[in-house]
């Protein structure tokens, strides 16, 4: 900030470190904010749609990730500009709430800001613009609800759900296998879904990745997969009709938590101590064995002595199972977590059809699969793929698909994708614009233009001519009164998205438009930026 002088020529220092602060006001502030936000949107623009491209991001540590998931891209870009950060949060909040459509929401916000910039140049007050956007948003949402269709998620072997999952997976690197992966995602969600309460606890779906193999090898395990192996290589690799003992205490002599010293004064005592320790191990194994358990999973480590004893007693065991896994296993097998050997009782054991150690490829890595659990509520999706990057991206893609399915279970209304829903809303908003008598009319009209930006961006990414294809789709929507006409991204020869079966959830679309409008309104309301002048 520049210095101010009073009437007598003396400079003021009003704020701390005044010289080091930068201040932007009025039009300059709007424009700088809008340009920063637009820059983000432009980066993401090319990732939109089924033919969207991926971004390669290198972290400060040199880790490389390749993705086309909007939320992940903006998160890894480590954006510093305060306004641009708002868009990052926008994308993340879409991710948190819906899980899908994170690119679309940012692109839409960018389009809206672009329109706002031209309106600002016309001299329209920023709050009038945001009022207009708000009204247009309401109209668009209402129209979306009108054109939305309810689908029967049960019908035809959950065909609708699979299609919706395919739409979500269509833009990702795994799109070649979208049908298979979609089916996996649908089965996984249905396995854990509570259809009466329409609730899905995503914590119950575990996604495990393992490099090697190809994406086709990805499979669903109706049980739990843990990245551990038996504590002793000679233990049996498979247990059928497993009775699981879940322990949260180590196979070690118990230690008091209070600091303690043992004073051994003679050899006799020393021997006694040794024997006592041995006795502990024997007791422990006996307690487990007596309860009828035929496998022990432990959250902590084993003493070598104990490991040996376990093997001798033919009791397979797994050590260092993580806390979350312990919980999942407990839920799935109906086991109770046991904190002390003395408390092991037969009722507390969990039951599973089989537990086996599986090996992947030629590598030495092994994993444990727990299947046919007593109260199977937890499932695992094991993702395979050529490289770490592909596996990671596949994981994100499947997560998106799972979210879409969950949203459909919660609310089974859908709209059609391919930009058709946006176009239909744009037409409706445009019609509404003429009914507005005040300055807001311009803003409402611009909102419609911004909505059209989405299909045009889709077309652009697919190598179509954006202007021609959007114009065609628009005129057909109007002449045929069919809100399902969109952009034929996959070159299937039809622009009717119902025939192409591009399903998107209503909740996701609604959220996209609402969140984007909200953030744009917030950016438009800032007329003054005070920041340290060092970036």
């Amino acid at each position: 900030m520049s210095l101010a002088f009073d009437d007598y020529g003396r400079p003021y220092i009003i704020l701390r470190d005044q010289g080091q602060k930068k201040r932007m006001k009025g039009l300059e502030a709007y424009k700088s904010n809008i340009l920063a936000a637009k820059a983000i949107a432009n980066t993401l623009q090319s990732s939109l749609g089924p033919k969207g491209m991926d971004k390669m991001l290198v972290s400060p540590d040199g880790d490389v990730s390749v993705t086309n998931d909007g939320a992940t891209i903006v998160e890894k870009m480590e954006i510093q500009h305060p306004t641009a950060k708002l868009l990052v949060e926008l994308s993340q909040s879409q991710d948190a709430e819906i899980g899908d459509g994170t690119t679309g929401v940012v692109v839409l916000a960018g389009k809206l800001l672009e329109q706002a910039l031209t309106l600002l140049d016309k001299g329209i007050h920023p709050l009038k613009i945001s009022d207009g956007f708000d009204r247009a948003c309401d109209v668009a949402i209402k129209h979306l609800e009108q054109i939305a269709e309810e689908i029967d998620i049960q019908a035809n072997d959950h065909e609708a759900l699979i299609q919706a999952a395919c739409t979500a997976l269509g833009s990702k690197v795994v799109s070649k296998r979208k049908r298979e992966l979609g089916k996996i995602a649908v089965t996984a969600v249905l396995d854990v879904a509570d259809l009466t309460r329409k609730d899905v606890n995503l914590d119950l779906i575990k996604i495990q990745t393992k490099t090697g193999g190809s994406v086709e090898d990805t499979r669903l395990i109706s049980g739990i997969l843990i990245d551990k192996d038996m504590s002793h290589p000679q233990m049996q690799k498979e247990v059928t009709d497993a009775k699981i003992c879940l322990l949260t205490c180590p196979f070690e002599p118990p230690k008091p938590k209070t600091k303690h010293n043992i004073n051994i004064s003679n050899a006799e005592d020393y021997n006694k101590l040794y024997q006592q320790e041995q006795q502990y191990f024997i007791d422990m194994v006996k307690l487990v064995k007596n309860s009828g358990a035929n496998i022990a999973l432990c959250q902590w480590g084993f003493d070598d002595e104990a490991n040996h004893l376990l093997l001798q007693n033919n009791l397979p065991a797994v050590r260092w199972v993580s806390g979350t896994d312990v919980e999942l296993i407990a839920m799935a097998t109906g086991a109770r977590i046991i904190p002390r050997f003395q408390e092991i009782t037969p009722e507390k054991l969990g039951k599973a059809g089989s537990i086996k150690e599986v090996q992947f490829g030629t590598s030495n890595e092994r994993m444990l699969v727990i299947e046919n659990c007593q109260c199977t509520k937890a499932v695992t999706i094991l993702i395979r793929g050529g490289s770490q990057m592909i596996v990671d991206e596949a994981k994100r893609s499947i997560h998106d698909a799972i979210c879409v399915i969950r949203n459909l279970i919660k609310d089974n209304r859908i709209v059609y994708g391919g930009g058709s829903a946006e176009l239909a809303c744009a037409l409706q908003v445009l019609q509404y614009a003429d009914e507005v008598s005040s300055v807001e009319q311009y803003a409402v009209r611009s909102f419609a233009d911004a909505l059209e930006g989405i299909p045009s961006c889709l077309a652009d990414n697919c190598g179509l001519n954006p202007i021609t294809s959007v114009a065609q789709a628009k005129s057909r929507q109007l002449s045929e009164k069919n809100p399902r006409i969109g952009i034929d991204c996959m070159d299937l020869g039809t622009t009717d998205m119902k025939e192409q079966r591009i399903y998107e959830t209503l909740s996701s679309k609604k959220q996209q438009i609402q969140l984007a409008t909200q953030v744009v309104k917030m950016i438009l309301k800032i007329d003054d930026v005070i920041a340290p002048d060092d970036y």
Partner: protein
Amino acid sequence: MSQFLQPTILLLREGTDTSQGRAQIVSNINAVQAVADVVKSTLGPRGMDKMIQTGPKVTISNDGATILNLLEVVHPAARVLVDIAKSQDDEVGDGTTSTTLLAAELLKEAKPFIEEGIHPQIVIQGYRKALELALEKLEGFSINISKDSKESKRDTLIKCAQTALNSKLLANTKQFFSELVVSAVEKLDPNILDRDLIGIKNVTGGNITDSFLVDGVAFKKTFSYAGFEQQPKRFENPKICLLNLELELKSEKENAEIRIEKPEEYQSIVDAEWALIYEKLEIIVKAGAQIVLSKLPIGDLATQYFADRNIFCAGRVAQEDLLRVQKATGGQVQTTVNGLNPETFGTCGLFEEVQVGAERYNLFKNCPQSRTATIVLRGGAEQFIQEAERSLNDAIMIVRRCFKANKIVAGGGAIELEISRFLRHYARSVTGKTQYIVNSFAKALEVIPRTIAENAGLNSIEIMNKLRQKHAQGGEEGRWYGVDINGASGVCDTHQSFVWEPTLVKRNALCSATEAACAILSIDETVKNPKSDQDTKMKPKGQPGRPPMGMRR
């Protein structure tokens, strides 16, 4: 000649900056103007927001007190403004921007007098007199709502909350939020109206209208250990045990050391430790508790123990949340379980763990002694929710005040203009210099409607003329004319268009603005000590808390 021989007397430390006299007052006034200019554009329903970056943190706000606080004002006179904004915020919670503007405008009007050589004390006296009259009139004009029926009172409160929300980000959903706020405040004990008992929780994601009110307490799922998921997540009329106690297997005393002489004794020590924790858990279970909440950690052992017995538990509950649960459920926080009495347990209609956005929340609903409420705010970006929280805070304070004071006036600059008209009229009957000063006070009041009009992009001169004309008619007719930002004419009866504010806000604003102006006018010398050595050494390193330049943030 003797005066030339007088030795120099060093009174102050070297480097001390002193300035005095009239120039000092003028300089202070200018500094205040500069600060007030920053917040000026946030006033009114078309007021804009400020984005302030301090270190890595970015705040977007429309709240006068928040902005001034973040500006880090160091000028001593200008700090007075920051202080009155803060006091307005503490006292009434809203109207911080108008207080600041009013104080600055009063000083601006006083500047020509000071420059012309009128003694500051005369100005101060004049302002005080004018304030006295203004407050008297304010009381006279305000509308009493205490006799209104309950429904119409609620209606009034909603209107007041809406006025407070008008200039905020939430303006478009003000109907929704004002009702939310009024319902929340109505939940409180009408005699105390403790603000702390309304909790606001932020969850990013979702639309802003997905926000909801819980008539009870809500807090985020705390850190949990394995076994937590096996606990039941829903209770009707549960018995809630509140603790300030660690339920973990650990050493009783930090520095204790045990010497074990014989190997046989070893097991007994281990058993003793387990017995201690099991004893505690057993007492809780025996007492019949169904939900156990503790301020301190509840370990994995206890979690699993409770899970086995169908009890829900949550450790590390934040102090304020625990306090609110206590108020809402009528329980008492225990620091020990010895002699745990079921009478100290609280209860509520329904306890549930629900998914809100990406988070899970514990909700305690339908509490019997529900003297507390929680608002769960949803919204797109973190900053958005934070600003929404500040706005709601203002609205809550306003409703609370209104609930107590029962008196309202019309906003939109109407009340200021009416007082201004009265003071102008009165000034003519005064003899002496005071006449000018009372007149200036009247003129300064006009800054509020003028700024509202300016911020809305209206022609402020034209609007002020229209308003003055309406008010000059006198009587009830033109009394409540204020700035209308939506209509074509730019003015309207703000009482009829329901722009209502509690009288208390205005009263406090007038008082503290005048006080601040008088305080600044009465300063005629500033002695500023040089920065202490320690401070100058710190300087080149930059501010504490801000990482050095070039570092990753």
